[in-house]
């Protein structure tokens, strides 16, 4: 690890210029040990008063420092936003969830192995050096929205559920604002090192959940082992049925792009219809029409198709086909 100056912030204003925020530390310290990130100055925000879950309008305001384990276990989250509990519980381990914060989880970096390997070129780690993953040995990379400069994914689970719940990120700084989680992460384009809409000097203070939606919610995560592994693909569904027809649906897919992936056309195609295998096949075709697989991650195309259909069947109570 490179040397740094440590400062513990007492207030939101108590932020040294140019300091890198540390919250739970579970991603940042890992990257600092690998010297992928080498901040000269750290500001520890973990003692700021941002650790409450409280009502906001008809929804909820989740402080940026609420730990993943507290959020997953919160009785209101479990009752009204179960897809969020499920996504959190499917991520990392009991120890890590006790440390990981809501803000830090949103900001976590990719798990592309070349990003971690200082001996290889990586446009995300060292802009302009090239991308070792393109043409390298890859597997858990993007099938949507990749560019000629980067094909890494955003690896987190929580944000996939938040995207399907139409949550917003509250940002403090010179230009306070809210950004939809669905718009918060950026596709790589030719600037893969710019990963979110957060600007230097800004801080996430909360995530805002809108009023709960009636209906069913599911989070399905597919991974290499049954627990404690990042997703290969994941699907979050929030769906409402009225008189046997789908009247509202949000679908977000994880670990397939640099952001939780939503497709408005795919969602629109489900509205007004009764659930059926044919309908879900059609939805999967729409979702996957934009997919392009480099040889390594190409397996995710059929995997996401099956996961999407299985999750929709489960959420709508459709009996599995024989």
């Amino acid at each position, binding site marked *: 690890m490179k040397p740094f100056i440590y400062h513990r912030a007492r207030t939101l204003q108590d932020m040294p210029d140019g300091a890198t925020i540390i919250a739970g530390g579970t991603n940042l310290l890992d990257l600092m040990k690998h010297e992928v990130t080498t901040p000269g100055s750290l500001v520890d925000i973990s003692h700021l008063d941002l650790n409450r879950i409280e009502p906001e309008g008809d929804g909820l305001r989740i402080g940026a420092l609420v730990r993943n384990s507290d959020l997953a276990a919160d009785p209101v989250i479990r009752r009204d936003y179960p897809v969020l509990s499920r996504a959190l519980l499917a991520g*990392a381990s*009991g120890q890590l969830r006790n440390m990981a914060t809501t803000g830090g989880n949103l900001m976590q970096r990719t798990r592309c192995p070349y990003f971690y390997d200082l001996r290889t070129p990586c446009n995300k780690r060292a802009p302009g050096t090239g991308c070792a993953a393109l043409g390298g040995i890859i597997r858990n990379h993007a099938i949507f929205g990749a560019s000629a400069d980067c094909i890494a994914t955003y690896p987190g689970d929580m944000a996939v559920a938040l995207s399907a719940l139409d949550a917003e990120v509250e940002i403090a700084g010179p230009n306070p604002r809210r950004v939809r989680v669905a718009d918060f992460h950026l596709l790589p384009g030719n600037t893969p090192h710019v990963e979110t809409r957060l600007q230097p000097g800004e801080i996430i203070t909360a995530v805002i959940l809108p009023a709960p939606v009636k209906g069913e919610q599911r989070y399905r995560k597919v991974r290499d082992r049954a*627990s404690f592994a990042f997703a290969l693909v994941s699907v979050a569904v929030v769906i409402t049925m009225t008189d046997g027809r789908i009247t509202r649906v949000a679908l977000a897919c994880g670990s397939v792009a640099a952001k939780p992936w939503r497709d408005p056309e795919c969602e629109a195609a489900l509205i007004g219809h009764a659930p059926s295998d044919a309908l879900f096949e059609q939805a999967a075709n729409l979702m996957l029409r934009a997919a392009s697989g480099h040889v390594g991650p190409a397996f995710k195309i059929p995997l996401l198709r099956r996961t999407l259909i299985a999750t929709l069947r489960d959420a709508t109570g459709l009996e599995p086909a024989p």
Partner: protein
Amino acid sequence: MQISLHINGSLRDVYVDPRTTLIDALRDHLGLTGTKKGCDHGQCGACTVLVDGRRINACLTLACMAQDSEVTTIEGLGTSDALSPLQTQFLNDDGFQCGFCTPGQICSATAMLGEMAAGWPSHASDSLSGPFLLSHAEIAERMSGNLCRCAAYSNIIEAIQNAAHAEGSSGDAP
């Protein structure tokens, strides 16, 4: 930098570089070598300690971040004369082979049983509202942050179930 850490009930002053992780402060500066370092990257759980009663990975926390918190290590859970229920049960049920992962397993299981008692769900729970039983599947999921290179898993699970029963705490084994 000079920091003070509350460890196992006593206040310890220690001079560390800001880069020092909690695991290195415990082992290298305070002589508390019960806590083990496996991967140093949050992946194995050997370094699990309790901070304010919650299990965390001491390798992914800076020592200076733990100031003002109460840190409990395996040395603070019991003594050789007065073992904790989980320590006793790991002995009785052969919950280890080489023993390297054991301090982390026991610290983790101590907090995990507290999480069960508090009614926290897990990925293995059928319903988010419970009941949460101390089944094989629940324990395997809740303890998945603790790897055992000797694969003593079946005895670890048994030891945890038996310790919980001895304590008369939550859940039933199937």
